[in-house]
């Protein structure tokens, strides 16, 4: 498999509100293509919203989000840009329960219009990558929580993203399984070279990353050494 390169991320004074609630306030953050960054902070601090802005799932009310210098929301085809640039892992695996593990990994490839045979080969090799080749034909209900999350990781890698975004990927797992999933995520990042942003309320995850950014009340904690700025 061709290793994807990482992507540079620039969040420039981005703000986002939901009604009267300000989820993010003038947040600025720069992540270089070779980095693995953990975003941490208490519940409701805006971690997931920041990740959604970076992943092109939401548009900032103010400020800019640039991936490799390009604002994802100004791309002619946002969906395509997201598909080609970003892979997502969520707290809940969000696997389609009627489909096998392999078919779940194929789902993003269907979106990319890939042919069936190629899809199958790619999905199978990704399951090998996450150590689940022997579970390829199992339904999600036949997998353990850790295995489901590994399938979700394989799905996130399907379109060879340059930016892997994980939103509390171990939030629903026990400590042993969490450690295994984190091992997988960071080892894949080391092998494949994509930029990795992990949202976690668990501060210890930061030990695995290049640096940690802490959000408090929708702003980056100024005391955090690794935060570039928060205006």
């Amino acid at each position: 498999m061709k290793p994807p390169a990482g992507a540079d991320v620039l969040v420039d004074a981005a703000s986002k509100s939901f009604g009267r609630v300000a989820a993010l306030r003038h947040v600025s953050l720069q992540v270089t293509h070779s980095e693995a960054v953990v975003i941490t902070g208490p519940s409701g601090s805006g971690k997931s919203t920041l990740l959604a802005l970076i992943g092109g799932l939401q548009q900032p009310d103010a400020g800019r989000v640039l991936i490799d210098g390009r604002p994802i929301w100004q791309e002619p085809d946002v969906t395509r840009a997201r598909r080609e640039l970003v892979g997502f892992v969520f707290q809940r695996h969000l696997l389609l329960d009627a489909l096998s593990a392999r078919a779940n990994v194929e789902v993003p490839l269907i979106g990319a219009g890939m042919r069936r045979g190629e899809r199958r080969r790619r999905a199978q090799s990704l399951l090998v990558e996450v150590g689940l080749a022997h579970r390829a034909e199992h339904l999600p209900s036949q997998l353990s929580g850790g295995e489901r999350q590994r399938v979700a990781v394989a799905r996130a890698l399907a379109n060879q993203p340059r930016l892997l975004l994980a939103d509390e990927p171990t939030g629903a797992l026990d400590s042993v399984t969490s450690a295994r999933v984190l091992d997988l995520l960071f080892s894949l990042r080391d092998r494949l070279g994509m930029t990795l942003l992990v949202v976690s309320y668990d501060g210890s995850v930061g030990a695995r990353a290049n640096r940690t950014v802490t959000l408090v009340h929708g702003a980056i904690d100024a005391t955090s050494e690794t935060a570039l700025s928060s205006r």
Partner: protein
Amino acid sequence: MLAIISANLVRRPARTLFTASGIAVGVATIVALASFTQGLRNTAAGFVHLGGSNLGVFQAGVSDPTSSVLPASLAGRLQRSPGVARATPLLLIVEAVKGDAAAITFGADPGGFFARRLVVVDGQRALGADAVLVGDRLAASLRLRPGGVVSIKGHPYRIAGVYHSGILFEDAGAVLALAAAQELASRQGEETSVVVELTPGTRGARAAKAIERRFPGTQAINDPEQAARAGANGTLISKAILVIVVIALIVGAISVANTMALSILERQGELGLLSTVGWSPLRVASLILGEGIAVSVLGAALGLLAGVIGGGLLVGALGVRSYISPSVTAWGLGRGLLVGVAIGVLGGIYPAWRVTRMTPLRALSGT
């Protein structure tokens, strides 16, 4: 995509089946009525060509050809018309045979070509004041035999013989002498129709028009479609089918829309995920539309099967089995299938549109 569509339908089997069943009822009704109408047309074909004639002459403007009334003198005048080889009068009496209300009693001139063409398969060819011939289908259904008695309008007639003509109406009925039939029906000097055999080379449509011009107040029918249109029943059923198609489309589409709308509410996370992993809004909408069409096609398939069976049951329920055989045509089935697919498309449009308006962020929130 197809695998996902089928998996999504299979994982909610009861809902899929109930929705499909609703569509199936509409499609089945359409197919059953279409096959019944086609059966009526086929029967009308036999009605037009009674006795192997080329055309039948009836009173103009009647709602049902059997209620036609013509003067007894018409047959003789028709006989002398250009292009007419032979003409013979008939008096049709309906709901007269005891034990089979659908059987028609034909009053026929014993010397006319209608009576002479009956092939007697059992007994003797004898038509008189108290003697009757019965068709082989009627004989089989009522277990009648030569020498026995059949009651027509409460009057007992001796069965002289059993005939076969190859025309459903005739074989499911009985033939009396015209004079006896007129007396029985208290319609002396009247006839229902005159069946006409044309001279070789004469075109039926042209001859029919010439007859109608020559004898105002009559209608000459030479093709089954014309007969079906002339009969009120066929027209009513054809219009009823149209109404049912519209109702089936509306009710079916609402049913599919309701099911799919419920489905997308339950699957917001899943649909948001598809969008998140790079499915375009059009592709996600296609998935929803595809599911709607798939459940409709399933319903249509069930409906086609039920309609074919239902056509037979309908004929039985109406008590017209003896002279109407439901006929399933490719167009009848195709129409049912088209309605099914149209239901899926119509019912899937709104939920599919709603999906395109959903934000992928729902996947992140896990709702």
